[in-house]
């Protein structure tokens, strides 16, 4: 094997949630990972474990992943009780094995939330997030017939704040972190982005109501302000988005047309 690192291999014990499909019961299964380079990403470590499993004739561990650079929002592992693992402000795919120690036991589970049913092993169904966006996560403009981009001046401060909200990758860590499995941080990030921008004003109140209604229908829990979502969000989306959404939701009842 080509080794370009000067660091030693690590030996780890993994306890991984295995579940055949949505209709069967799952359980934690223990695996040994003996040749783990500290330079590997967490998902590369699982790749190596999976290659071993396939060689042994076992079924590989299923997990969602795609871009492996922290932006697509596909990866979604609950590692040692924390969404995306022990480090702040990153996704699972950005977590490297140097964040662990030789001999560690690592427990890997899927997101746990009634609104995110398990499909297989560590893969969950997060389509509830899409349905919340369908309900109102847009500004109703058709293609063509829009004004020149510079006709809408937006203060840099406001644009930056809107972008801070818009960086949400829709991974669901906020839900997984919350003891109530609330989706408030996710929903409020979209609501905020559009509530902050002048383009979002015409549908501002209707949007917040539609999205919150859909969120409730999907079976997400309520927000009790523990702040776990903000603490675990890989994009460090601020809790103030939730405050902004609550204010708009309240105002929507007053200003409702």
């Amino acid at each position, binding site marked *: 094997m080509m080794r370009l690192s000067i660091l030693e291999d690590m030996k780890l014990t993994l306890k991984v949630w295995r579940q055949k499909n949505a209709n069967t019961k799952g359980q934690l299964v223990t695996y040994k990972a003996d040749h783990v380079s500290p330079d590997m990403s967490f998902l590369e470590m699982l790749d190596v474990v999976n290659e071993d499993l396939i060689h042994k004739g076992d079924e590989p561990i299923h997990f969602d992943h795609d871009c492996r650079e922290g932006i697509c929002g596909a990866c979604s592992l609950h590692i040692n009780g924390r969404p995306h693992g022990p480090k702040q402000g990153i996704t699972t795919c950005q977590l*490297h094995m140097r964040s662990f120690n030789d001999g560690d036991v690592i427990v890997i589970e899927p997101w746990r939330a009634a609104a995110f049913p398990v499909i297989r092993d560590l893969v969950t169904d997060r389509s509830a997030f899409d349905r919340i966006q*369908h309900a109102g996560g*847009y500004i109703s403009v058709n293609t063509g017939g829009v004004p020149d*981009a510079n006709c809408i001046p937006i203060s*840099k401060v406001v644009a930056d704040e809107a972008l801070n909200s818009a960086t949400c990758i829709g991974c669901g860590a906020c839900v997984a972190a919350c003891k109530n499995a609330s989706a408030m941080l996710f929903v409020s990030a979209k609501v905020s982005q559009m509530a902050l921008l002048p383009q979002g004003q015409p549908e501002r109140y209707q949007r917040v109501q539609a999205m919150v209604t859909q969120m409730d229908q999907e079976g997400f829990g309520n927000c009790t302000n523990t702040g776990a979502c903000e603490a675990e969000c890989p994009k460090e989306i601020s809790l103030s988005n939730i405050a902004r959404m609550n204010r708009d939701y309240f105002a929507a009842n007053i200003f409702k047309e």
Partner: protein
Amino acid sequence: MTLDAKIPEGPLAEKWSKHKFNLKLVNPANKRKYTVIVVGTGLAGASAAASLAELGYNVKAFCFQDSPRRAHSIAAQGGINAAKNYQNDGDSIHRLFYDTIKGGDYRAREGNVYRLAEVSVNIIDQCVAQGVPFAREYGGLLDNRSFGGAQVSRTFYARGQTGQQLLLGAYSALNRQIHAGKVTMFSRHEMMDVVTIDGQAKGIVTRNLVTGNIESHAGHAVLLCTGGYGNVFYLSTNAMGCNVTAAWKAHKRGAFFANPCFTQIHPTCIPVTGDHQSKLTLMSESLRNDGRVWVPKTKELAAKLRNGEIKPADLKEEDRDYFLERKYPSFGNLVPRDVASRNAKEMVDEGRGVGTSGIAVFLDFADAIKRLGEETVREKYGNLFDMYQQITDENPYKQPMRIYPAVHYTMGGLWVDYNLMTTVPGLYALGEANFSDHGANRLGASALMQGLADGYFVIPYTLGDYLASIGPKPVDANHPAFKEAEKEVKAHIKQLLSLKGKKTVDQYHRELGHIMWEYCGMARNEDGLIKAKELISALRKDFWKNAFVCGSNEELNQNLEKASRVADFLELGELMVEDALKRKESCGGHFRIESQTDEGEAKRDDDHYTYVAAWEYKGDDKPETLHKEKLVFENVKLTQRSYK
């Protein structure tokens, strides 16, 4: 068969508007009688699906990811070009057209590229109207940055996550149409085949990735917006799921594949650390605005750096070679990607590479930090610096980044005419999946532009012309052609699942990647390409004998998904090599060692190779037939590209 690109007659600047007027229209009341199938939900797919649904067509959209928002356009970092000339620095539609044609080393169509530059300005307007939070100046107007291959600032951006913001904009437009019932969305579905009836594309067969169900979907037209095939190299900056399957199946059903060997190797990626590596991470080209690329002047100093005897900061100015600034004084660090990549390879080949492996060059921000202050640099590139530190465990504010080229984008793709239609009537290819606008090298920040141009502003016009011509008669998914295709797909899956050999699918993919990178990567020559053909052919045969595929069809089976994709890469790889072999000139990203200038730059052979190579599939294990579409240049003079 003669290839007709259908470029409209008349002066360059009037072609598109004249063409739009000449295209047939579908009456608004009739639009709802048509169904359009859109495969892929990246920038091209999401924008096309949304725009067509807004017009009144029924759309069925498909993606293999769990949500359309995760398509790989999301990962584009740096920006999107548009000829707005907001900076008053001399930009124009013609200049963007010219830069793109020149950047592509004169291997793209004038007509297509001009249209791309023309609609670029509409894209920015559209995105802003959707609420895309682009970077702004303190006065509230939009900000721009510079990118490679241009001497004007025309790149719009949203920090280092422009692709994400543009895709979320297109995704929001798509969501609005899903909510309105005009788009039916199928996530976790992989397209397994295109179905043609009487030579026209009438639908697709998909595999539901959760249940394994093989399903037929009928429509009046099929749009493939399925991205590029860079993952044929195993290691690339593409997402793990990016694949060629949809385009390749279309190719086997009669769509010609154009310029398959035109691959873009991006100069600024984080170097490989070991065999476990699953993908490579790009560091945005925008970093070359402020970062300076260098290696030590001598091999001896480079060796000392690699051993850790000295640190980069110990090297005095006179011991450093800022090779891009030295060789290309007028463009400096902002030369196009192919030029920057090749030069980095040259330095490494000379033994002047850095990092433990010696396969890297420096991208240094010390001067920028001195000039602008660390805070400003953090504001501009903060998330990229964080990403770098996360992966390498090194602090780029304190020591130079180590970078090396990696496969990033494929200029080749399905051959399309001016209307974006492939050689199969009713089958279209948009975005990276087609070949049309970037020639032999794509300029930075032009992929986002092309994806959205095709989806928002080209296909809504050109598709109507075809639909009007075939009429709204419903298409039946029970037609024997669908049943036949389903049967073939099921047989293919069964064959894959019957493979119980000794090697994993990933092992084959990795081996294929090694062959492609070694012989069909940054530099290619005849001997190597001939060898690669043999190696790939042998590897493919071995795959169908000795691969191991686990599990069953009726479940989520990621190993089966991968196996099916790798099987297609094993066929595509050989075609890429064949194309590289036939094109004996160098141009853009295609560098034939036999064809270079005295200074080592790519040397074109315009007399013999001013054409698009369009390959026709002739059956399993039969050589493909090469068709040539001659490129005609009426508005630019073909010259040796110079960035000096």
